[in-house]
């Protein structure tokens, strides 16, 4: 379970402060997949980074019960001069996970074959994304924070990701931010809309998507 209480965040811009999050309060229940819809620039990624703890909020409280993932997306976190395997070992170490298990699972899941043992700088962006995604699946998080899952791989890999999340549905939850309605429909039991610095909650996914489309 993750709780946000009066979380605010602003960025300085040329025309003054841009209030990305304005006293946002929400309690994310455990074992429930939640989608957060928002237009480009609405602050979805910022919200996700703040939930993860990668970025600090200007004010407010964030309480996390259980292990929360880093913001899983197509970028970030790998060093180009190390191989996919070495990057996996590093991440497994900082999370105190079993090295062989993580490396084995990721190699299998990401389907990189020989590239898994080559420097990450030789990867295509799709390969990087598969590595990132496989690696996050290899570690047992209580909550997975996903940034735009649709960017990862082809339809087949997508299906695999969904299966992996379904297999974990009893133990962990997923929080997805996206501007894509179908992603949220596919994955989530509840849906929120981030708009004008506020997080709007709806009773059903349909209601949320209607509100999002109307905006």
């Amino acid at each position, binding site marked *: 379970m993750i709780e946000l209480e009066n979380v605010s965040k602003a960025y300085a811009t040329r025309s003054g402060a841009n209030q990305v999050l304005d006293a946002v309060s929400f309690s994310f229940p455990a074992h429930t997949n939640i989608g957060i819809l928002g237009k480009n620039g609405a602050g979805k990624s910022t919200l996700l980074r703040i939930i*993860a703890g*990668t970025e*600090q909020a200007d004010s407010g409280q964030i309480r996390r019960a259980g292990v929360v993932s880093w913001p899983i997306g197509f970028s*970030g976190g790998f060093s180009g001069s190390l191989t996919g395997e070495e990057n996996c070992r*590093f991440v497994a170490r900082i999370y105190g996970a079993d090295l062989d298990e993580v490396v084995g699972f990721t190699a299998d899941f990401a389907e990189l074959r020989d590239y898994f043992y080559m420097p990450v700088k030789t990867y295509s962006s799709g390969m990087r994304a598969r590595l990132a995604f496989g690696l996050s699946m290899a570690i047992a998080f209580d909550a997975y924070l996903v940034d735009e899952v649709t960017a990862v791989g082809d339809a087949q890999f997508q299906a695999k990701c969904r299966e992996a999340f379904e297999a974990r549905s009893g133990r962990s939850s997923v929080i997805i931010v996206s501007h894509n309605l179908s992603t949220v429909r596919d994955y989530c039991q509840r849906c929120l809309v981030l708009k004008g610095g506020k997080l709007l909650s709806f009773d059903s996914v349909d209601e949320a998507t209607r509100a999002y489309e109307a905006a």
Partner: protein
Amino acid sequence: MRGLLTQLQVVYALLLRETKTRFGASHLGYLWAMVPSAAWILMFAGMYRIFGRLAPPGTSTMGFLATGIVTFSAFRETATRCMSAIEANKGLLFYPQVRPLDLVVARAVLEIATHVILMVLFLGGAALIDGVPRINSMLETLVGLGLASGLGASLGLVCCGLSVYAQTVERVFGTVMRFIFWTSALFHPLESLPKAGRDVLLWNPVAHTVETVRSGWFPGYDARHVNVWYPLVWILGLTFFGLSLERMARRRLELS
């Protein structure tokens, strides 16, 4: 307590990663770490030979030069590596449990370990040439080397914080290092200098660490003006300043 354990886990993981990125690029790996210091020592040993200069009484040429140059290298390399620690590993701040300070600490630990090994190798090498010395106090030698690295780490931390605000730090850094190189008693024991000169050099904390290393290694080495607490005070002061800078720079680091 859990937080401390996580931090140790993170620093350990970073340490292994740094070792790989620093030494793993070439097949000769760790050997490369020896090259710069070895080149300096051989160059000055050659000059001593050509000009017929003798090492101070109670020391050997190779031993005297190695104690100076490796100690200075511990200071300079640690400072240089720590200074770029955050810039080089910014991507890792993406993982919530990796904090900027961890990156600096991991690099400092690797440099200290590397220079302890270098010191053992070079002094061992000097012993092969000059005969096995009677060591005065191994502990004192290690304390001196540790203080030199500590000075480097704390200075690196400060520069790391400053470089978030000003790009000129790196340029000034090189000049400062050259100045310290020539005022750290690398080629003249402090006691061999006239009082006026010695009094000036005694302000330089690195000179104290170099002379501490020598006083530990060579029995009867005269280091009566040297004080181990003086560099320690510098380390504490620089660390305090560096940590304050890190606190202020934290928000800026996240944005980039």
